[in-house]
């Protein structure tokens, strides 16, 4: 593992996070029940759908639908 690899991924992650923050429908997110709201915010920050779905206590597919309703892009 080289330092420049880590730096490259860090930069890409930051760009993706910025995009998710910018495009998210925050009104929708903030109108959700606490568990879903927290999970959507976690997803905006990390892009980690599996962990976010566990926080929301729904399946990954159900969480993916919430993600789309919240206008959060899956950047990959």
């Amino acid at each position, binding site marked *: *593992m080289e330092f420049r*690899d*880590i730096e490259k*991924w*860090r930069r*890409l*992650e930051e*760009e*993706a996070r910025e*995009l998710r923050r910018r495009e998210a429908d925050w009104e929708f997110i903030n109108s959700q029940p606490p568990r879903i709201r927290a999970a959507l915010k976690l997803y905006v920050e*990390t*892009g*980690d*759908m*599996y*962990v976010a*779905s566990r926080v929301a206590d729904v*399946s*990954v*597919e*159900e969480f*993916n*639908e919430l*993600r*789309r309703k919240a*206008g*959060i*892009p*899956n*950047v*990959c």
Partner: protein
Amino acid sequence: MSAEVFAIADTCFLIDWASWRRRNLLFSLFKTVFVPESVLREVRSERTIEWIATSLSSGSLSLFTETPDVIAFARSLVEKSKLLPIRGIDLPEAICLAAGKMRNYIVITENRGALMAAEILEELSGINVWRSLKLIAEALRRSLVKNDFREVFAEYEVDTGHRFPKKDLEEVLHELRGEA
């Protein structure tokens, strides 16, 4: 066995592709795509279940049952990834990576953590990990789709709520045009 005969799909990939209007392109690229049992458990909608069940019955998809050796390797990958100063991976995608490495399957994923792990962890050296960008590019390269290149990628973004990184997409489009 040629690496391009078999692939193994993670949850995010399968769910995204189930929403895409050209989802069956997947089966023109691989002989069969393995679906781990843990991935099946994450699917709920009638549309996705129906597509998966039909594809399982035709043999385009095949069930992958996680064995103890795969799970043990996957767990070690999760732990290794958590030592890195970037986003790690979780067990479901680690299972796909472990199976990919151990069985020489192409790992197909929409999970950036999996892409990072494949590039950084020494235990995964030589593994083949493809994201949708590469799969779609491959389908276009093989002329499995005749539409305008950019239009096909745009359709995928619209249908799935996915976003390809601009720079990566432009690079792929440039390559494809150079080959056309």
